[in-house]
């Protein structure tokens, strides 16, 4: 990844666009007196897997919420795929191509597995209420394609066809995580945000999940951002790691650099080892 200046003219529109898929400049978020994020510069190159780590309360979630449009930064800019997303609502951000999962699984519990993925596909569908009532051929085709696509995604994340009509809440924990990924993928995202995807998993499941993340990037040409507070998880899978502490970026680099960084050890690992 040699660095070169980003030339807007060199954007290849259909294939790649700008080299950086996401670019945050001097993002600051202030709640009343509390500065949750201070002057954070952050970027995600296309087709990379990058991670944000930091102890609990470091400002990861705040940063994440600004990326997904839940609230805008107090100052600074975030642009995604060349678009400044300031003032975008979450559904507009989703339509631009950011899909996400949740740390504490948040499925549509009383809907079927298939319907969960179909809702994920919502932004790529066109059917309005009057189309639905009239039931035109094009709308039926769209529905069929959506079912088709949803099933492919369930296959991809490793959920069997036999559970597609079960309610989401009745799936075992691991399968619920898979379903969340399938729902996020259904919107054909360019960037997939995974919020602590291995939370609550044992070492075997964690390894499977990290392998799965690597496979997603390879097979679907996705760009992936992981948020973790467990450093061990991200070391193996990500190319670049950003470390937050007390709302500020304290380090950035490859896993090897992060592992060797004294500030990280002090702020992060040091705290953990002293705690145990």
């Amino acid at each position, binding site marked *: 990844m040699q660095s070169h200046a980003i030339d807007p003219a060199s954007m290849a529109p259909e294939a790649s666009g700008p080299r950086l898929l996401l670019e945050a400049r001097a993002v600051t978020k202030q709640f009343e007196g509390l500065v949750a994020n201070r002057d954070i510069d952050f970027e995600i190159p296309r087709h990379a897997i990058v991670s944000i780590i930091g102890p609990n309360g470091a400002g990861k979630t705040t940063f994440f919420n600004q990326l997904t449009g839940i609230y805008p930064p107090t100052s600074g800019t975030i642009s995604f795929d060349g678009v400044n997303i300031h003032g975008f*609502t979450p559904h507009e951000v989703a339509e631009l191509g950011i899909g996400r999962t949740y740390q504490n699984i948040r499925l549509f519990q009383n*809907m079927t597995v298939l319907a969960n993925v179909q809702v994920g596909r919502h932004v790529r569908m066109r059917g309005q209420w009057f189309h639905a*009532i009239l039931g035109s051929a094009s*709308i039926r085709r769209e529905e069929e394609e959506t079912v088709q696509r949803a099933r492919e995604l369930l296959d991809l994340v490793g959920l069997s066809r036999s559970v597609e009509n079960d*309610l989401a809440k009745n799936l075992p924990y691991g399968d619920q995580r898979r379903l969340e990924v399938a729902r996020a993928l259904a919107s054909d995202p360019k960037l997939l945000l995974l919020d602590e995807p291995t939370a609550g998993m044992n070492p075997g499941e964690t390894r499977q999940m990290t392998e799965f993340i690597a496979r997603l990037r390879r097979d679907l040409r996705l760009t992936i951002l992981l948020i973790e507070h467990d450093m061990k998880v991200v070391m193996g899978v990500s190319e670049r790691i950003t470390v937050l502490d007390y709302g500020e970026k304290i380090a950035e680099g490859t896993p090897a650099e992060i592992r060797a960084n004294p500030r990280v050890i002090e702020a992060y690992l040091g705290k953990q080892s002293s705690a145990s």
Partner: protein
Amino acid sequence: MSGNGAMLRSAVTVGGIVAAVMLYLVTVGLVLAFSEREVITGALTLGRLMLAVPPLVAGFVIAGRGGTWTGRLVAGVVTGAVAGAVMAVALLFADAVPGVRGVLVRVSPALVAFVAFDQPATTGAAMNVALAAVLGLVGAVARATPPHVRRPLMWGALGLVIMSMLEPFVRPRLTDFELGAVSRFIYQGRGLSIPGAVIMFVAFAATTAGWRPLRARVGGRIAAADAATQATIRGMALLVLILFLLALPQIAGSFLSQVLVFVGLYTLLGLGLNIVVGYAGLLDLGYVAFYAVGSYLTALLTSPISSLGLGIPFWIALPIVVLGAALTGLFIGAPVLRLRGDYLAIVTLGFGEIARLLFLSDALKPWFGGTQGILGVPGIFGVSRIDVPVLGWELTGPTLTYYPLLFFCILAAFVAHRLKYSRVGRAWNALREDEDVAEATGVNTVNYKLLAFALGAAVGCLGGAVFATQLQSVFPGTFNILVSITVLAIIILGGMGSIPGVIVGSLALIGFPQLLREFAEFRLLVYGGVLVIMMIARPEGLVPDITRRRELHEADAEAEAEAEMTPVEGA
């Protein structure tokens, strides 16, 4: 031994609860009100039945709690006897202390005599204990009976009761169709005759017993047939259903048609509110506003003596009414977009009242007529009577209103069905499940909330429009909070988000009370009781949504299989 002790304790508890229910039914006057209503003439009245069912249920419940079969049967007897004993003590007390009537005004000598089976109090008390104990035992035995035997017996009994309740309506119709002899054989006085009761019981029991195997066989054959045959069969079934619905007012007669019209009106309201509450999960307690808007707009536009004085024909006014209601939906929906759950419910409740008060107000009297309302609304087709040429049917009043209402109901059900299984319906469901995640998944939650309010209003206003033409006038007093609550109760009873549920719900909550006029003063009490029981016993409703029903069926089937397979080990 301790197992048996625990069993007895819970038998006493259940008996006590059931006794409380029975005492309540007696002291509010429900039992006496129904003591003249014959089920089987000379043998059983509805009032007696009301006191017989609770110990029966108690025996059934207690026998489902495990233990040896002997233990269960004993528990059944105990629980029934406890319930009967409480009643007996109450009876002796009421007999000995006449002053009790000063506190419990409904405890009249007639009631005391009724509870005592017209015997002296001591004999009556003993009979209460004995009868309740026997009923408890019967309930426990029913639990021991395999479902394929129990179910037909239960439906047989239920069918018998329903047929006797229908006596005032069925009998004159039988006479109209020159079946007076049949009527005299089945019915006697105001209830069923004894042979009539036996026939009804056997007929309903046999139908229930035959239904499952028949459905399995026919279903198997249809599944085995090719697609074209299946389509033909489905088409034929639909045709038969439609022909039946078209002929229904002719079979049912004028009074039952009026009942059907009420059921239809509430079905329309229910289908509309179901979009808002059942699909999108927005608890709207002011739904009556849309009913009122539908009625008033229709009256304004079609009545020649309204303030507008336009006298437009109904069918031309209808699109304007629907559009107006949808806009009202947006108007009410917009300010409450950020509210959730309880807060939304409270605010919409307020909007419902505001709508009523606006129509009632003096300030708007020049338009809406204040308390006088709007008069002179013409019938739906502009005429009061239509003669159907070939069939010789005369359609007037309710038998005439029935048809456009049926059309609207079918239309509304169709629209609701199409929406439910579409991108829109799924977006609404997602909104109901988790608003934040729905938004982050790409659902424009603002638009979809407004859409739910607007479409819900558009469907509900159809009910209002038909209502105005049927009454030929509108008054603000009609559109009170009770309408909103009744419609919500219909949805809850039928099953949130379920279209057949709305129909079943309005049949049960609107149609049934019309059949039992003794109910009138107890209607709200019964609604409340029904809702509480539903929330405890079957929160997903009578006819739940397919996805929910599937879950339920699995659980049911497992429980049933378990109950049948394992003849419970000793305690």
